[in-house]
């Protein structure tokens, strides 16, 4: 394939001076090594990095698509608006609350489930398959399911079950709360926890199964109890996997758009940053403002990503040293 391009280079290298020939040959070999990498690298830089440069430039401009004649550079005005706008400040807080809740709760649930699945029992494969299913529902489909079939105040299954239970005890006045307008953020969080717990479980289960079992056996022989083994052997071993699951989960959940967009349309204080950017850009057509918001999100992500990359890097070096 692309390595073929290097073949013509080698014979044409000058042969009168050995030194030149060798360095040219070396250079050709180095390029032969690089050649398979270049298409992917160039593609990634062009499609993912250049738009960010444009975002940075536009963030310093006053540019509203509804008034295009007023396009000009205005320095840090957009950033000032981002910092001062109470709506945006609340969307920053919402993003943090949403991400932290979803990641922490699904991580804990995922850990519990991974521990349950880390033993041999009848139907273990089936249970694992059942547990993975929520992660394999298209996110928009899942959001619609929760919004209409589960939370809906008049025909959702939660209130339906409440009616049922109350009738069982002879009452016709079962509480019928409107879940989405009473607890909007919780409604979004529960649907996301349901979707992300399998993700956490899969990573932690892989971590549990990479454990050296002889240490556990030795500890059992020495009379260690289940809790002691968990606390002093399993948990330290799982630490990296917990970090990895939490950080990758954060990277994905911070960017969540589908659930917020579908379940609450960003209303009732559930607008996170991705939704706010979408709204500023798509509904208010304020390009400059949307870009400044984008830059703020990127800076936040870089902070999280630095930790995430360090964790992945330590896993990688662990693998290399094995």
């Amino acid at each position: 394939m692309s390595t073929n391009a290097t073949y013509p280079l080698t014979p044409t290298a000058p042969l009168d001076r050995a030194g030149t020939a060798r360095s040219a040959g070396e250079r050709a070999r180095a390029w032969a090594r690089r050649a398979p990498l270049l298409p992917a690298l160039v593609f990634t830089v062009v499609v993912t990095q250049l738009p960010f440069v444009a975002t940075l430039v536009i963030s310093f401009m006053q540019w509203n698509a509804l008034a295009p004649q007023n396009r000009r550079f205005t320095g840090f005005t957009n950033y000032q608006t981002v910092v001062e706008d109470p709506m945006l400040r609340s969307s920053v807080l919402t993003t943090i609350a949403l991400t932290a809740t979803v990641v922490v709760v699904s991580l804990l649930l995922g850990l519990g489930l991974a521990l349950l699945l880390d033993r041999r029992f009848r139907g273990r494969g089936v249970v694992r398959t059942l547990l993975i299913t929520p992660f394999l529902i298209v996110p928009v489909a899942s959001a619609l399911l929760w919004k209409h079939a589960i939370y809906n105040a008049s025909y959702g299954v939660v209130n339906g079950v409440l009616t049922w239970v109350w009738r069982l005890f002879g009452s016709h006045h079962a509480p019928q709360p409107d879940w989405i307008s009473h607890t909007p953020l919780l409604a979004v969080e529960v649907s996301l926890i349901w979707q992300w717990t399998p993700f956490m479980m899969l990573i932690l289960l892989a971590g549990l199964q990479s454990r050296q079992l002889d240490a556990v056996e030795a500890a059992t022989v020495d009379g260690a109890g289940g809790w002691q083994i968990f606390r002093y052997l399993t948990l330290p071993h799982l630490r990296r996997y917990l970090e990895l699951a939490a950080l990758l989960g954060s990277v994905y959940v911070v960017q969540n758009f589908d659930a917020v967009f579908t379940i609450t349309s960003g209303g009732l204080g559930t607008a996170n940053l991705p939704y706010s950017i979408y709204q500023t850009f798509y509904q208010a057509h304020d390009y400059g403002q949307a870009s400044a918001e984008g830059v703020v999100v990127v800076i936040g992500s870089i902070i999280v990503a630095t930790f995430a990359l360090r964790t992945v890097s330590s896993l990688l070096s662990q693998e290399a040293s094995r």
Partner: protein
Amino acid sequence: MSASPSTASRRGAVWTMLAWTAGVLFVLPVLWMVLTSLHSEQDAATNPPSPGAALTLQGYREFFGAGGGLSPWPPLLNSLTASVMSTLLVLALAVPAAYALSIKPVRKWSDVLFFFLSTKMLPAVAGLLPVYLIAEHLAVLDNVWLLVVLYTSMNLPIAVWMMRSFLSEVPVEILEASAIDGARLPTTLLRIVAPVAMPGIAATALISFIFSWNELLFARVLTGVVAGTAPVFLTSFVTSQGLFLAKVCAAATCISLPVLIAGFAAQDKLVQGLSLGAVK
């Protein structure tokens, strides 16, 4: 110190029960979705619910356009095109790149690897506006090939990481030996690299397919009536008047089906893909 065998086995039974309960609990919303999709609109919207109501395929008929609604086939076809084409492009770019990062590594290969990963950490929404403006300028808005390019860039880092972790299992000594024996590169690739790489390529393709199929934000902003994908179609399915629950559940089931199939097929490799190859 250790518990008697009967206590231990009883405790084991409790854990097994707990695991089964958790599994059923997690799958319950999905079962409810499928059951609702098989009910008539009237039976789907009762309070208390009527799980035992008569089953009908009416919701599915409506989804496929029987009620005079829009046909789901153009969006489904768009999703299929965007997902399959971007997956093929991802593989065409990622496999050679992973080769140059593992089997015959370039200098500073780990820096390159981390550059790919860092692009995945930046939120795509921040690049949405420039992409929109450029697409508008090039007149490729509402064009499914725009999504193909964007989904490729979205999945390429994951694919490079996954393929690298698979290809690093290729026995390098055998590769060197075959080079000494004078085997040509295509032969080497076919005989030694391919058998190790094929399961990895399959897993990478499935993961890339799932993420492309699921994507909503870019598809919603960058497409319209022509190139709209299945998730965008799904959001338009909720109407303000009349009953629609069975119809929506039927649509959600149909649109999730390809992902469920791909996901169950790739179950064992799913974790490796999702953790970018860091966990095996």
